[in-house]
């Protein structure tokens, strides 16, 4: 009787409310088939979507009625003002890349110790583990733009504020990606190091670091890619780079110029992607 009660307690709430179907096979064995959760999930989803439509004022009919407005700016962006690229785009674009490089390097350097302290297999102390993870969560949850706008007020307008904002953004993502992969490394070599008398630091460096390094470099490259894309926006709040130009031109409604910027940005991001893919291939082979 007690055993049965314990078993019922273990059952998920859903199965206790909607009892599983009891199937008895011809040979006398029986099996419980839990009822499908799909209808319930679908119902919830429909409710959430309905509330969302109410909250955001979404309406299909407006889209259909005013669809003719869509190509107005779109068309202008699609016909870029090519002469604008050489004249004005290059210097701020370079600045964007420079900001991304420094921001990525700084962010990734700080992310490394934080991610090690946030890995459950290395930091065995539960309270500090949760503490570091909470800090990382908070850093991650604040949008880059908010960092940039606050920093732009604290430091002078310009590249420095943007770089620090990128650093925070990188720190947040890189640390999370890192601790997730650190948690999957093989701890056997660490155990072996301990068995022949190495201390914690020595064991970590000789047994875990070689496994973490390629993942770390990979994460840095990935973050750099993200940052080049993201830093295009930072200019909106005056934090330097090509974003300043974008917000400038949008304000003046010079969408042909904006188109030119977008095209250049696309090419640059594409080239960086290619370089990164090449480096990653190398990493895979070497490490």
């Amino acid at each position, binding site marked *: 009787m007690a055993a049965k009660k314990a078993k019922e307690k273990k059952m998920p709430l859903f199965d206790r409310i909607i009892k599983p179907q009891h199937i008895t096979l011809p040979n006398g064995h029986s099996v419980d088939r839990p009822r499908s959760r799909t209808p319930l999930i679908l119902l919830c*989803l429909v409710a*959430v*979507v309905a*509330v*969302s*439509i*109410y*909250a*955001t*004022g*979404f*309406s299909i009919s*407006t*889209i259909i009625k*005013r*669809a003719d*407005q*869509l190509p*107005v*700016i*779109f068309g202008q*962006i699609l016909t870029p003002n090519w002469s604008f690229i050489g004249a004005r785009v290059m210097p701020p674009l370079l*600045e964007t*890349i*420079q*900001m*991304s*490089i*420094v921001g990525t*390097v700084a962010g990734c350097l700080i992310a490394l110790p934080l991610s090690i302290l946030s890995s459950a297999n290395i930091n065995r102390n539960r309270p500090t583990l949760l503490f570091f993870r*909470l800090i990382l*969560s*908070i850093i*991650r*949850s*604040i*949008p*880059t*733009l*908010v960092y940039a*706008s*606050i920093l732009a*007020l*604290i*430091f*002078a307008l*310009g*590249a*420095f504020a943007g770089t620090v904002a990128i650093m925070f953004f990188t720190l947040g993502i890189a640390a999370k990606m890192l601790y997730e992969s650190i948690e999957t490394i093989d701890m056997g070599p660490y155990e072996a190091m301990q068995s022949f008398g190495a201390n914690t630091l020595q064991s970590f460096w000789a047994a875990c670091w070689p496994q973490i390094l390629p993942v770390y470099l990979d994460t840095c490259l990935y973050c750099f890619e993200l940052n080049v*894309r993201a830093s*295009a*926006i930072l200019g*909106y*709040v005056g934090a330097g780079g090509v974003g300043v130009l*974008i917000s400038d031109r949008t304000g003046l409604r010079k969408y042909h110029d*904006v188109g030119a910027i*977008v095209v250049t*940005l*696309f090419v640059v*991001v594409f080239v960086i992607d290619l370089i990164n893919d090449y480096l990653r291939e190398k990493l895979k082979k070497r490490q």
Partner: protein
Amino acid sequence: MEAVMNEHEEMKKTERTANGDVAGDILSRLESRVRVLEKLMSEPKMLWMRLLIFGIIAVIVYWGSSAITYNGITDRGSGIAVNVFKNLLNPDRELLFNLTRDGVPFLVLETIGIAVLGTVFGAILAIPISFLSATNIVPKGIAYLFRAIVLFIRTIPSLMWALIWIRVTGPGAFCGVTTQSICSIGMISKMYIMAIENLDTGILESLDACGCNTFEKIRVGIIPQLSASFISTAIYRFDINLKDATVLGIVGAGGIGSPLMQSISSFKYQRVAAFLWALVLLVVIIEWISTQIRARLAHGRS
């Protein structure tokens, strides 16, 4: 113990001497020594390669830092920094619990709404696009055409999309929804394509053997393989959309972003604090839930 070891070594040596095997022993030791030294000579020289790589990285970082000059803190800068931190613990309570359309609760709801609809529409739109871009479903030419379209959509920054849509929808959350729907397509379809191309077609063969028709094959053989990863991708994207929804606010696309940015630029720190608290809580909670759900999807119930 070393003494014991040495003693044993000695004993072994004497044994061997007794056997008259000294020459052979020395010879084999020498051979081993030669093998070891030869191997040592053949050690791959990594040092220069490493120094070169370090050098290149150092040059790149140096070049990067040349553009970023620290101009010190602005006159009001330190005051702002102090004020932001001071007021973090003293958020605008009136705003936090105000249930009108300007209050934090509604803005949070609106932000969630933008992310939900953006994700749902994006995920639905991505399904046909990703099937049409999967090389194992359609001819390569068509697949690459659709991939190029997806790449193009991804390239235009989300703020541009917001500007494009704002003429259709007018400013507000509606614009945020349409923008996010389009912007989500890029990443979602990239993940979907990967899932589709990794389909295990062996199952289709065995279903063929069972005599299933095309519809049955899709229902039994393909949907169960894809649904978990599709849902997982959508939830992951929901996470991202939630964060992006706040950014879209700066061009007037609704959500908690625009009042937050306004409060920052007008130095209303108590309001900033209220919005930041709401934002951090919202994102941390949603991220936690989505991680749990995705872990379940990946590893099954239990």
